[in-house]
């Protein structure tokens, strides 16, 4: 111990350092807690408490964490989401939609999504690059992201920016496990899977699709497979119909990987049979992500889907 520092002093010093940094980073912590635990400090602390951290955010050139509102769509109004969503009987899944054809010439593909896409994208890019060395491919996938916690990461905005900057011809989106949770709108908290939540979530999907469709960018939305975690499994039953419905509404593609990885209307299974009839593990231990064998299956499905759209 220091000559002058008692245990009591040490305790108070730690608490003081913790409180000072909490105050200085309050806005960032609020964003973090929202994304991680769905807690909003804004709901319990006065606005003035956030002033230092917001000012600091401005000085450091960071986003001060202002609550983003969904931007209006600039394309034609799509058919609204059909509510209530249809529940699927056991063993069934939302089928693949493959209606788009690629524009002629080299393609420019953006891969967007969460950690699931982080696993898949490198393999798809490698396969496509071997077949088409002149194609451009960009992987922007980022773990822990989704469409619900827009304040933490704004996919509609990021994808719109990428479309403008890179003259994309395809966007492939694979996300969802971070989304089955309540949504914080500027004025209220909307519970997961309620009609209002679905409308808002579908509006964010629409924002991506409308921007892409208006700029003639093809979109493949990869559906979610079964999940080990009960909460996520219930989430898949809510999210896949939204992805499928909106793809149908905008005339974009939906790729169902459930038959390859695990049908979400059935109990989770880590293993699938391969061509020789052997059980092969396709999921990692967390029951969300994929083993190399699982990634291989998704890669093949996605590459085939793109190649088919690219064929005359």
């Amino acid at each position, binding site marked *: 111990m220091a000559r002058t520092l008692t245990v009591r002093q040490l305790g108070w*010093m*730690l608490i003081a350092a913790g409180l*000072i940094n909490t105050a200085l980073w309050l806005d960032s912590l609020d964003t973090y807690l929202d994304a991680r635990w769905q807690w909003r400090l804004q709901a319990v602390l006065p606005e003035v408490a956030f002033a230092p951290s917001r000012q600091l955010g401005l000085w450091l050139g960071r986003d001060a964490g202002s609550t983003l509102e969904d931007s209006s769509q600039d394309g034609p109004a799509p058919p609204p989401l059909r509510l209530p969503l249809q529940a699927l009987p056991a063993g069934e899944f939302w089928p693949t939609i493959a209606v788009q054809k690629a524009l002629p010439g080299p393609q420019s593909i953006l891969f967007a999504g969460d950690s699931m896409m982080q696993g898949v994208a490198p393999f798809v890019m490698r396969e496509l690059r071997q077949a088409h060395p002149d194609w451009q491919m960009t992987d922007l996938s980022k773990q822990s992201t989704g469409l619900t916690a827009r304040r933490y990461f704004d996919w509609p905005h990021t994808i719109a920016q990428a479309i403008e900057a890179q003259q994309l011809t395809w966007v492939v989106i694979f996300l969802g496990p971070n989304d089955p949770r309540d949504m914080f709108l500027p004025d209220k908290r909307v519970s997961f899977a309620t009609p209002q939540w679905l409308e808002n979530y579908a509006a964010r999907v629409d924002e991506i699709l409308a921007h892409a469709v208006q700029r003639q960018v093809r979109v493949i939305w990869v559906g979610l497979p079964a999940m080990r975690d009960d909460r996520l499994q219930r989430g898949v039953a809510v999210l896949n119909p939204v992805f499928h419905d909106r793809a149908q509404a905008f005339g974009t593609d939906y790729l169902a990987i459930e038959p390859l990885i695990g049908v979400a209307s059935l109990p989770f299974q880590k293993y699938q049979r391969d061509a020789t009839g052997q*059980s092969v593990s396709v999921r990692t231990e967390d*029951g969300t992500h994929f083993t190399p064998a699982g990634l291989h299956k998704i890669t093949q499905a996605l590459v085939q889907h793109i190649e088919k759209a690219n064929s005359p």
Partner: protein
Amino acid sequence: MSFVSPEFAWLCLLFFPLYWALAAHPRAQRALLLLSGYALYASWDWIFAPLLLAYSLGIGVLGVWLARQPHQRLPWCVALTLSMGCLAYFKYAEFLRISLLAVFNGLGFHPALPVWDVVAPVGISFLTFQAITYLVMVARQPSSVRPLPQVLLFLCFWPTLFAGPILRAERFFAQLDAGTPGRPREAMVALYIIVLGAAQKLVFATWLADTWVDPVFKSPEQYGGLSLLAAMVGYTLQIMLDFGGYTLIVTGLALLLGFELPVNFRQPYLARNLQDFWTRWHVSLSSFIRDYIYIPMGGNRLGFARTQANVLFGMVLSGVWHGPNWTFVVWGLLHGLGVVAVNLYKRAQGPVMPTWFSQTLTLLFVALAWVFFRAESVQAACSMLYSVVSNEHAFWQVKPWPMLMLLILVTVFLSLSHHACALQTRVVTWLQASPAWAVGAVLSLCIFGVVALGPSGVPGFIYYRF
């Protein structure tokens, strides 16, 4: 819950003052430590907590059995089988199944081997080795057997629970018996190494991962030879800063709890040969393998050839310990062969190399082996190494600013490695001489800086996988 998450930091602000306040009541304090260990373990997945409890109770009972029948082989065999069996079941069963299937398929058979759909508890490799140290301690000295609550406390001691360092039972119980725990030890050292570890992990290791390692290892075919080399150097530094940073943080936390952890790193990238490297890198693991596997197998007492076989076995085991993947086997084998090569060179009485040359040679070998450790498969690692020399992209095609930053980081890191101990002594001396408000101000400023330069979100530690 990660040790670098805001939630953990806030809980510490509540926990430590309460823990220290109970210093006059050791039973209550140990109960709090025990509960906090189980709560932290359950924060990953609640099912892990009852598993840990059952495992710890099992180890405790086996310890009692071993102590009562010290000269019988049966208790020892059962203890070893059960403790290692859990590790094998949770971690290696699927690897074994796939490997056996590959062998059978190669022979033209297609048997339906059963599958094990289990989730390995976090840190099970560390936990198992710590449990073995307890069982060996009791087997060697039956009077050292501990009551169940102490065994539970040892096996759920949270600073070492998730990713080591491997804390030996003798060391833990000696501190418990001495009555030293309960109050912070060397508080200024603890604060210094916690902040240093957080900076290593959150600022530097994360930058290396985001800028060089992850993108290049993910899609090596997109990069030229120099970028691939930069990623290899980047990973060499990243894993040191990541695991070293983690070790510093938990060592500091343990000091605040009043416990001293074993040293896990001694500036490994200054090693003069691979033997030297393994006395500096992940020391708690390498010394465990030395004391509990290599020496019981005969060590260097059975002739030169047998010694080299033992070295190879120990190093491959060290690789396999990291996980069920052939990449780790190859990594361990490479290090084993490297150590054997060093032994052969010494036996042949080769000329003594200049220090700078032997250090560089060792570091290059270690960096090369890390490619196998990091890659998804042996094939991917070989492909990456081959791409350095044969690549469709221009060799020199590289992003200049990240490259410059990497060179600066490597230079500063290696330069500071020589002076790390002296630097720590100077900073700690200054902190100890300073008034509490000044220490608090510096601490606040350092935390602020680490958060400002750190990533958004909470990055995972590499060794949490093991």
